[in-house]
């Protein structure tokens, strides 16, 4: 208790003379802010990407692919296979029959708006039932495509990140002159990065006959999945694989998510090391500047332990202020920042998500660095002989 009181007093006395070493204190603080900015920004990118892919899947929708293919792009199902999905038990049945959505996914070349390079835009052919199976999809401008008229609707993120995909724009692909008649959103989901048109038109433009990539099926409940899956898998002629939509997208995000997190953490650790040395330097400067002050207080009967704690506390204080600044900057600059990346060879647009827990993690990381940075200078301050400190002027 006594030592804590002494620590507090030493800290207050030290901070009162902060203006005299504002420059070095700022360098330390800004160093920590930079580390936290980078760390939080990178992690918020991973979080945003993860969020987009998670937001896409719902747990009462199943995704049927060809046996052995792990992704829609490498999967082909025949019309017959697609129809049989609708007969499986557990599929919800609405006014229009079984709620299944056969879909064809192809990639087309589009120029990115910012980088102007050609990138793969996902182009999806769907039927009217797609809007029932994916209730997240909602029009924000224009109207839905009319079958057979070479009309498309464009996801909001795709509209933003590619050139020539604005409402009423026209573009040529697969020998067809397409016209953008609507823009849709996906409530944070991945489909907002896609272009949608009607299934038969896309099939004929890309000469896919009657085949589709996948069939999405809305189930009566999440609990109906095992039975649905077992039924399809036990049918030997069918030769399909079955996935929960939710898991399918979460799994797709895992690799990139991990890569971003690991790379970001390594970068942040390296920067953190730099900030740690900068802060240790600051604290050494502070300690030597305060040598006389510390010696005076030691002659008055203040304990060495309090000196150690106050130096460490000051370092942690710089670190935490830097951390808060960095997290705030990350929030201001990066929260909601739109970025795109390649996922299974097609562009996914997502938004950085600076969440409170990420900010807290960043600030804690800075605090830990500040603690480490303060240790050696604190030990040096406490070891310095009092008599020498009194002499030094």
């Amino acid at each position, binding site marked *: 208790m006594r030592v804590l009181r*002494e620590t507090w007093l030493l800290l207050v006395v030290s901070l009162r003379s902060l203006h005299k070493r504002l420059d070095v204190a700022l360098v330390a603080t800004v160093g920590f802010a930079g580390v936290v900015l980078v760390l939080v920004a990178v992690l918020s990118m991973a979080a945003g990407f993860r969020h987009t892919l998670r937001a896409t899947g719902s747990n009462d929708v199943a995704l049927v692919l060809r046996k052995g293919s792990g992704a829609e792009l490498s999967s082909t199902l025949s019309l017959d296979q697609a129809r049989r999905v609708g007969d499986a038990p557990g599929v919800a049945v609405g006014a229009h029959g079984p709620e299944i959505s056969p879909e064809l996914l192809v990639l087309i070349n589009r120029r990115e708006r910012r980088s102007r390079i050609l990138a793969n835009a996902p182009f999806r052919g769907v039927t009217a039932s797609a809007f029932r199976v994916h209730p997240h999809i909602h029009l924000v401008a224009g109207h839905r495509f009319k079958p057979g008229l070479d009309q498309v609707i464009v996801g909001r993120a795709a509209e933003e990140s590619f050139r020539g995909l604005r409402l009423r724009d026209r573009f040529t692909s697969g020998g067809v002159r397409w016209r953008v008649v609507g823009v849709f959103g996906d409530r944070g989901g991945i489909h907002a990065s896609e272009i949608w048109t009607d299934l038969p038109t896309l099939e004929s433009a890309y000469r896919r006959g009657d085949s589709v990539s996948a069939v999405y099926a809305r189930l009566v409940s999440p609990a109906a999945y095992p039975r649905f899956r077992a039924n399809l898998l036990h049918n030997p002629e069918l030769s399909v694989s079955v996935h929960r939509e939710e898991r399918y997208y979460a799994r797709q995000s895992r690799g990139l998510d991990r890569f971003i997190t690991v790379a970001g953490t390594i970068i942040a650790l390296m920067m953190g090391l730099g900030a740690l040395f900068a802060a240790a330097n600051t604290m050494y400067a502070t300690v030597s500047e305060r040598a006389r002050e510390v010696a005076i207080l030691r002659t008055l*009967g203040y304990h060495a332990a309090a000196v150690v704690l106050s130096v460490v506390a000051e370092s942690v204080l710089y670190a935490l202020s830097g951390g808060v600044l960095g997290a705030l900057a990350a929030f201001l600059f990066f929260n909601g920042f739109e970025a795109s990346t390649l996922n299974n060879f097609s562009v996914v647009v997502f938004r950085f998500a600076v969440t409170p827990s990420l900010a807290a993690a960043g600030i804690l990381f800075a605090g830990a660095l500040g603690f480490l940075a303060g240790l050696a200078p604190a030990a040096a301050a406490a070891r310095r002989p009092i008599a020498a400190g009194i002499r030094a002027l």
Partner: protein
Amino acid sequence: MTEIAAQPSSEPLIRLERVSKSYRRGGETIQVLDRVDLAIPRGDFLALMAPSGSGKSTLLNLLGGLDRPDEGSILFDGVALESLGPRALTRWRAIHVGFVFQLYHLLPVLSAARNVELPLLLQRLGRAERARRVAAALSLVGFPDDRHTFRPTELSGGQQQRVAIARAIVTNPTVLLCDEPTGDLDRRAGDEILDLLVELNRRLDKTIVMVTHDPHAAERARTLVRLEKGLVGEIRATSS
């Protein structure tokens, strides 16, 4: 030890026995104190006089537990300082020793009153009690009432030294150790500080050890000790 218990009143407050201290600089060893024996009675005002560089400050630092001797023993009121660990020595210093330095050594960021309050913060005292003791100490040293909130840089040298003395006595320590307390003051301000020390010694019975190389200052003490070549030379009572 038994002797101390049998005759406590005749035992000096501080007793140095064959105290040696040397500093190492590079490969060279500087012997500053060489087997110094010295006894300081309770209630004494002792002036330690010696030329510059002869080890006065070194000796004072040893007396106050700021440094430890290489050899020998320092008995303070029956307690051997060398037997105390670092924490205990710090605590002992807070209770028994008040320091006054040539250059005042006040904390520039704190007001006069806050500087005086510093040692009191180590004790379990309420805010009001601390304020009372600070005011009493400042008034005892003749520090003007309307300057309590001034920072050290806003005070004269004599005023700063009064604040430093108030800080040294505010906890009512057993001994006051003064290292050239008038060394940085002009003759008049120096005399006033010496008057104050004499008064603290006479009226409050404070034991004072003062280091100086100024004969005029040394004359004001009760006892004068000359330190020569690391050894205690002449000891005599002054006319004061």
